[in-house]
């Protein structure tokens, strides 16, 4: 019957924590790079810059319209056949690149939506006192838009943390890979996956808590 080896599960926890670092590092780096790209895309799209703007639409369409796993395999296994430079690319970096590009597509839409939700009177007031479009964006529009975008961006970050588990498929030893390894060597699949799911859940609950704190702080006006 139900045979849950608690001892084994508890022994797994410190091991998990060790690989949690990889997961957290991959997620944070993805968020930083992805968010930077997302802002650039959103601003280019909003300013309707010639040539670049339609290219960004294609970019977003591609990364939103295809599975993350397929993108990961395409870069790491597929494109490496065409561009030999990519063979030197580590699995971690490959995962970081694909996760960043992918999450940027989603986050850029969240930011663009938030910018569009700001009353256009705000921009007019900026221009009327002599600001340039970019000054207005930086000083007035983006600070308001970021606050609007926080819930959607937090969702994206949560998705990044969970999606980072896919990196194990190309050989990054992060939390998921470690759980898989331990499960296979001990045949204790139940314990390994229960523990990893709890760790993810805990990690993301902490993120959710930080999100509410952040929203509270930004809600001063």
């Amino acid at each position: 019957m139900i045979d849950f080896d608690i001892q084994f599960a508890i022994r797994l926890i410190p091991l998990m924590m060790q690989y949690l670092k990889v997961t957290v590092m991959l997620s944070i780096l993805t968020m930083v790079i992805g968010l930077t790209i997302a802002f650039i895309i959103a601003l280019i799209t909003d300013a309707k810059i010639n040539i670049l703007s339609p290219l960004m639409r294609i970019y977003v369409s591609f990364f939103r319209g295809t599975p993350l796993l397929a993108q990961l395999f395409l870069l790491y296994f597929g494109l490496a056949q065409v561009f030999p430079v990519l063979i030197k690319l580590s699995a971690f970096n490959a995962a970081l690149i694909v996760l960043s590009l992918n999450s940027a597509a989603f986050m850029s839409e969240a930011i663009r939506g938030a910018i569009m939700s700001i009353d256009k009177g705000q921009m007019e007031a900026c221009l009327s006192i002599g600001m340039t479009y970019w000054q207005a964006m930086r000083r007035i529009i983006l600070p308001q838009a970021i606050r609007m975008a926080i819930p959607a961006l937090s969702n994206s970050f949560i998705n990044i943390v969970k999606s980072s588990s896919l990196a194990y498929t190309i050989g990054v030893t992060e939390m998921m890979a470690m759980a898989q390894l331990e499960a296979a060597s001990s045949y204790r699949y139940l314990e390994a996956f229960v523990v990893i799911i709890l760790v993810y859940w805990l990690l993301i609950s902490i993120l959710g808590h930080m999100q509410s704190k952040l929203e509270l702080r930004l809600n001063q006006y």
Partner: protein
Amino acid sequence: MLKLRNIHKSFGDLKVLKGVDLEIKQGEVKAIIGPSGTGKSTLLRCINYLEKPDAGEIMIDTLELNAKTITKQEIYELRKSTAMVFQNFNLFKNKTVLENIIESLVLIKKMDRSTAIEIGIDILKKVGIEEKKNVYPSKLSGGQQQRVAIGRALAVNPKVILFDEPTSSLDPELVGEVLELIKKLAKENMTMVIVTHEMSFAKDVADKIVFMDEGKILQEGTPEEIFSSVTNPRISKFISRLSK
């Protein structure tokens, strides 16, 4: 001081302004009245280029701008000598009252912050809302917000302030404080162009009243000329409808 010559503006097929000429002298207060949809607000927005006129010239002091050849730099110059007060206030929501006032001083005029704050406080005293200087706009009443918006316009130190229906979105009991402030500015010889539906206020505060209809100026004159000795049937119809 401010001269508009033959301003044209269309939105798609709709011709909103069909060749408007207007002249505003230093220290003059001009009210623009007329039926809805006749291009009053559009004309005002053309003056500081929130709308780009299709054709025509804008002259302000020595600055002469032609809609066909205007450059970005010229638009910024124009906006530095004009300021706009909007119907919906449009205060910067993420800035406090004082920050709203000093934004143009710090960012456009490159003043250091402490000088800007000094000037900002003076302006807040003038518009009578100094005690709210550290409050965000969402915590203010409509009338207070509009007074801050007028302060923000004053901070630009413009040659002319453009008012786009400054009391139209205010609750009736809050209209008074805003009109009083505009009257006060008129006494200090601030040059102003005011689009308004408040006829008695227009009569009171304006040196000249401009009646616009269907994208053109139908008549211009002193309040007495416009309100008492009406010669044009369209104007008399408009005024009698309002005074009912």
